[in-house]
């Protein structure tokens, strides 16, 4: 039944890169294709891993299987997570179930589309480096929960930017997301960056809390009018329900974007060095060939354009002579961005802002964007991701008939507050609750 639905949805929306043959368990689970599943093909959306069968489960998959998850398939994504619209795909480009001319967002696009369209699934696994959960959640009108960096184990996640990557959830409701977080969160000795925290429940935070909200003024600077309006209407509705807000300022928003891209690309360019036609993935006959020629040949064939672009930039930014100005500087700018968030989050409990500056764009619009325009469209999600702060995106209204996401950002490990805020907002805006 779950497989059949997945097949049908895949036909309509190109949701899956690989479908499972059978799915038996208590509930269906779609998994972003950069999260390893034992015995089920995992490509991270890349041709260079077109034949890769992991010999182990990611910790999150293992924990969900233990409570009855049946993996239905591996969802479409930008190759290695490098994109905002799920169009940098080596396989089929997923479509937005609300309007198939439009993008479902990225890079966890397939997981968001599945949750928007499925009648059976309550949540799916996604992953964010710079906004890849919140963005597709906003575009597809579902809930996206990105936990604090280190709260959920990255073991089994195919790395993009290891100091930024977080596994999280796309879900029908805030409560579904909070419930699933309780299963996957908690310390994992296989991930050295996993925080030493015990596993605990999060659904209990789906109650009203007395929260002070901060609205960062910089987060409305380059936002589409329709989105801006919808978000302000939502904030006013919350105010009417007794949740006060005040304006705050995060002046480092723009430098956060550059810092983020430098760090992410530097880390990515080293992570992707391992794909070279040995041990796994795309390969050729190595006989009679020098390693330089062989590696270059396999990598050139296996990687898409955006991957090459980011490898080039990441390699450049850490090369002798540039390392200091780009890589090391970016790490220091990150320290400042974190400090800035922490300062603001002393006076307010959560920040609220539009998740994305636009509604889901049409594929024709995306085609005319330059690479730099792609990158700058992440400007609202990137800073919180750079700082490793937990975020939740909930649908708050519509613009041009497409959903608009409201983004709540909390302090490190303040999942309780963003869950409460998201749950309350969902109730007010007429989500599945209420």
């Amino acid at each position, binding site marked *: 039944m779950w497989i059949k639905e997945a097949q049908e949805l895949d036909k309509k929306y190109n949701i899956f890169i690989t479908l499972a043959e059978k799915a038996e368990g208590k509930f269906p689970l779609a998994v972003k294709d950069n999260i390893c599943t034992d015995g089920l093909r995992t490509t991270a959306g890349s041709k260079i891993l077109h034949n890769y*069968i992991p010999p182990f489960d990611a910790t999150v998959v293992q924990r969900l299987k233990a409570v009855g998850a049946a993996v239905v398939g591996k969802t479409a994504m930008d190759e290695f997570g490098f994109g905002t619209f799920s169009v940098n795909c080596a396989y089929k480009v997923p479509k937005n179930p609300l309007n198939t001319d439009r993008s479902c967002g990225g890079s966890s696009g397939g997981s968001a589309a599945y949750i928007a369209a499925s009648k059976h699934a309550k949540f799916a696994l996604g992953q964010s480096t710079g906004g890849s959960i919140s963005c597709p959640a906003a575009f597809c009108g579902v809930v996206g929960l990105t936990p604090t960096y280190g709260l959920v184990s990255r073991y089994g996640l195919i790395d993009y930017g290891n100091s930024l990557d977080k596994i999280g959830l796309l879900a029908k409701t805030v409560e579904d997301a909070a419930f699933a977080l309780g299963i996957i969160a908690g310390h994992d000795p296989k991930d050295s960056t996993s925080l030493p925290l015990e596993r605990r429940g999060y659904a209990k935070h789906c109650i009203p809390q007395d929260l002070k909200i901060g609205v960062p003024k910089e987060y409305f600077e380059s936002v589409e009018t329709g989105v801006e309006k919808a978000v302000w209407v939502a904030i006013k509705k919350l105010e009417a329900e007794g949740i006060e807000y005040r304006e705050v300022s995060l002046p480092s928003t723009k430098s956060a974007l*550059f810092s983020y891209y430098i760090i992410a690309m530097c880390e990515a360019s080293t992570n992707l060095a391992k794909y070279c036609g040995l041990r796994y993935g795309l*390969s050729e*006959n190595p006989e*009679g060939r020098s390693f330089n020629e*062989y590696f270059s040949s396999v990598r050139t064939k296996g990687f898409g354009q955006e991957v090459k*672009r980011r*490898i080039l930039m990441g390699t450049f930014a850490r090369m002798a002579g540039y390392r200091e100005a780009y890589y090391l500087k*970016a790490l220091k700018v990150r320290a400042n961005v974190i400090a800035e968030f922490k300062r603001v989050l002393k006076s307010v409990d959560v920040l609220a802002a539009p998740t994305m500056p636009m509604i889901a764009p049409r594929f024709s619009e995306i085609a005319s964007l330059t690479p730099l325009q792609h990158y700058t469209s992440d400007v609202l999600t990137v800073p919180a991701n750079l700082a490793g702060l937990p975020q939740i995106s909930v649908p708050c209204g519509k613009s041009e008939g497409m959903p608009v996401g409201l983004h709540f950002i909390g302090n490190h490990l303040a999942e309780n507050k963003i869950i409460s805020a998201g749950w309350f907002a969902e109730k007010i805006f007429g989500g599945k609750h209420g």
Partner: protein
Amino acid sequence: MITKETVGRVAKVARLNLTEEELEKFSHELSSIMEAFEELKKAKAGKEPAFHPIVLRDSVRADIAEHCLTEDKALQNAEQKEGKFIKGPRAV
């Protein structure tokens, strides 16, 4: 400005073969991206680099052996192999 020559040098370090058109295109794109990124130089910075969003320390494991992969699992994804070995290109 990132010249075609620089792109070529970086591509060599990263083991990517680029066509003449790609060199041209990437030189153009990377120049405009890096130009925008120049703002980073003026950006407010903390004293110490932040390796991670949260300060992490001392996560180690005990020196106790655990099961390795079985031989078939270890080699299951290798297309290029010979006996129990992985096969690779010449080392020079």
